[in-house]
C-alpha cells in the first residue's frame, strides 16, 4: 500500500513535478471518475427517484426504500445471498486447508496437483454453470448416475429443480470452483513458515494433529482470514452462475441480490431503474458493513495487520 507522507513542504519539487504527476494519473482518474464513481453516484441518485425512459426523473424521496420493507422477494434474495456468503467461505477455506496440508506433506506430483486443482477457477461461470446443470441433471447427470450406481438411487433428484436443494447445490458449485484457489494461497503461506518452528514442534514430540492445530493454523491465520473476507466479497456479488443455471428459480430459492436487481432493472417491464437502484444502495451498505465488521472482528481477535 502507498503510505508515504504527502509532500507538503516543497511546492517546486524537482523530483516530483506536479504537471508530470497529473499527466500520469489523468487517464486512470478519468476512467475511474467516468465509469466507476459517476455510475455509483448515479445509482444513489436513482434510488430516490422514479426513473422511467423518455421522461425526466421524478423525485419521490424514500418511497423505494419504504417499498423494499414489504418486498418478500427482496428479503428472500438477501437471505439467500447472505447464506451463500456465510457458508461458502468457511467451506472453501476448510477444505482448502486440508488439501494444502496434503500437498505440504510432500506427496508425489504435488506440483502437478497444485496446477490441476486450481483449474476450475479459471473457467467462466457460464461454462461452469452449464457443466454443473448437466452434472445435476435428473436423468443422466453424473451425480444421480453415481448415486444410482452405489444403490442410493432413492436420493437421486433434480438438484437444481427442487427448492430445498437448489441453493445448496449452487453453493457446492462455487465451493468446487474456489477451493483450489484458496488451497494455492494457503499452501504458499504454509511454505513460507519458518522451518525452525516446525522442527521445534517435532522435537517436542508433537502429534501431527496437535502440530496443525497449535502451530501451523495459528501461524497462517492472517492468510485464512484474508481468504474468508475475499470469498465473502465474491459471494455477495454472485450473479453469473445463478443467471446461467436457475435464474433464481425454483420459487426464488436461488434468487440473489444481483439477479433480483438485474431482473427489476432490465427484465421486468416496470421500466423503473429507481427501485433496483435502491436495492443496490442498500446492498452496497450491507457489503460494506460486512467487510468492515469481519475485518474488525478478526483484527480484534489477534491484532492482525491487514
Amino acid at each position, binding site marked *: *500500500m502507498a503510505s508515504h507522507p504527502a509532500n507538503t513542504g516543497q511546492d517546486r519539487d524537482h523530483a516530483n513535478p506536479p504537471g508530470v504527476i497529473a499527466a500520469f494519473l489523468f487517464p486512470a482518474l478519468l476512467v475511474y471518475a467516468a465509469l466507476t464513481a459517476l455510475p455509483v453516484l448515479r445509482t444513489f441518485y436513482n434510488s430516490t427517484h422514479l426513473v422511467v425512459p423518455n421522461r425526466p426523473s421524478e423525485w419521490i424521496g424514500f418511497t423505494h426504500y419504504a417499498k423494499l420493507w414489504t418486498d418478500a422477494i427482496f428479503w428472500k434474495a438477501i437471505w439467500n445471498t447472505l447464506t451463500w456468503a456465510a457458508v461458502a467461505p468457511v467451506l472453501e477455506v476448510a477444505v482448502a486447508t486440508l488439501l494444502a496440508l496434503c500437498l505440504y506433506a510432500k506427496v508425489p506430483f504435488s506440483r502437478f496437483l497444485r496446477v490441476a486443482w486450481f483449474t476450475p477457477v479459471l473457467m467462466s461461470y457460464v461454462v461452469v454453470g452449464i457443466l454443473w446443470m448437466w452434472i445435476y441433471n435428473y436423468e443422466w447427470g453424473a451425480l444421480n448416475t453415481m448415486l444410482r450406481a452405489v444403490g442410493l438411487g432413492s436420493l437421486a433428484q433434480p438438484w437444481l429443480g427442487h427448492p430445498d436443494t437448489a441453493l445448496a447445490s449452487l453453493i457446492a458449485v462455487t465451493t468446487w470452483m474456489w477451493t483450489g484457489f484458496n488451497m494455492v494461497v494457503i499452501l504458499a503461506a504454509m511454505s513460507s513458515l519458518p522451518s525452525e518452528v516446525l522442527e521445534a514442534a517435532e522435537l517436542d514430540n508433537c502429534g501431527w494433529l496437535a502440530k496443525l492445530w497449535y502451530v501451523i493454523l495459528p501461524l497462517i491465520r492472517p492468510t485464512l482470514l484474508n481468504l474468508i473476507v475475499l470469498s465473502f466479497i465474491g459471494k455477495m456479488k454472485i450473479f453469473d452462475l445463478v443467471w446461467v443455471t436457475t435464474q433464481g428459480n425454483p420459487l426464488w430459492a436461488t434468487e440473489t441480490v444481483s439477479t433480483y436487481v438485474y431482473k427489476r432493472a432490465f427484465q421486468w417491464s416496470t421500466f423503473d431503474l429507481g427501485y433496483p437502484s435502491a436495492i443496490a444502495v442498500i446492498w452496497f451498505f450491507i457489503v460494506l458493513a460486512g467487510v468492515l465488521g469481519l475485518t474488525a472482528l478478526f483484527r480484534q481477535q489477534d491484532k492482525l495487520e491487514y
Partner: protein
Amino acid sequence: MSARTIAVPVSGAGLRMAALLLLIVVYTLYSTGPFVWVAAMSLRTTTEIAANPYGMPWPAHFEKFASAWFDSNYDTYFLNSVTIVLSAVALLTIIGGMAAHCFARYRFRFKSALYFLIFSTIIFPPQVTVIGLFQIMVDYGLYNTRVGLVLVYVSIQLPITIYILEAFFARIPKDLFEAARIDGYSEWSIFWRISLPVAMPAIATTVILNTILLWNEFLYAVVLITEDDKRTLPLGVLRFLGDQLEDVGMIATGLMIAIVPVVLIYVFFSERLIQGMTAGAVK
C-alpha cells in the same frame, strides 16, 4: 512403551499415506473430471451422448467444431471476444502502468487517499455500478457498442492492475531512475524505457490475469450488449444454450471453444497466472 511408540507410528504412517493418496486421487477426479467429461462430449454427437453420456469419444467428431464455428456464429463471438479483451488489456496495461508508476515513484498530496479511493472499489458490489453505468452508456451513445464494453472492462480491472504493478514498481531501485534523469531522460521516457521493461514480469502477470478474467466476464456484457453480432463468447454460449437446449453435444462443443484458449494460456503460463489470480489474497 518403547515397543508401542515404534510399532504404532510405522503402521499409522503407512495407513495415513494411503488415506492421503486416496483423498488426493478423489479430489483430483472431482476437480478435473467435469472438464474431461465436457471435452469427451464435445467430440461426440448428441445421439451418441443420449445412448451413453459417459462414453469415450471414439470415433472423434472433429467436424462438430467446424459446424459450431461456422453455422452458429461462433466465429463472430470468438472474434468479438478476442478484439474486446485484447483492446481492454492493452489499454489497462498503459493506463494502469502509468498510474502505478506515478504512485510508486512520485510523492504528492492526497496520494494515499487517491490510492485508497481507487483500490476500495474492489469491494463494491457490481449491482451498485451496473445500473448507473447502463444509463451513462446510453447517454454517451456507447450502449451496445464494443468500444463501450472495452472502456467498462478497463474500469473494472483497473484497481487490481494498479495494485499489482505498483507493488512491483515500488521495488525498482531509485538509483536507476536517478541515473536515467542524469542521462537526460524525460519523465515519460523513464516510464516507457525503464519502468515498463524492468517490470516485464509483473506486466506479464497482469496481462495474463486480465485476459482470463475479461475473457470470462459476463455481467457487464449481458447488460451492455444486446445485438447478436456484438456478443462476446460467454453471451454466445448462453444464446446457443437457449436455442439448442436439447442439443447437448453441440453445446459441449461450444463450451470447449470457450475453454480451449484459457487452457492454452494456463498450460504455458500456469505459474504466472496463479501468481496474478492470488495477488490480492497473498499479503
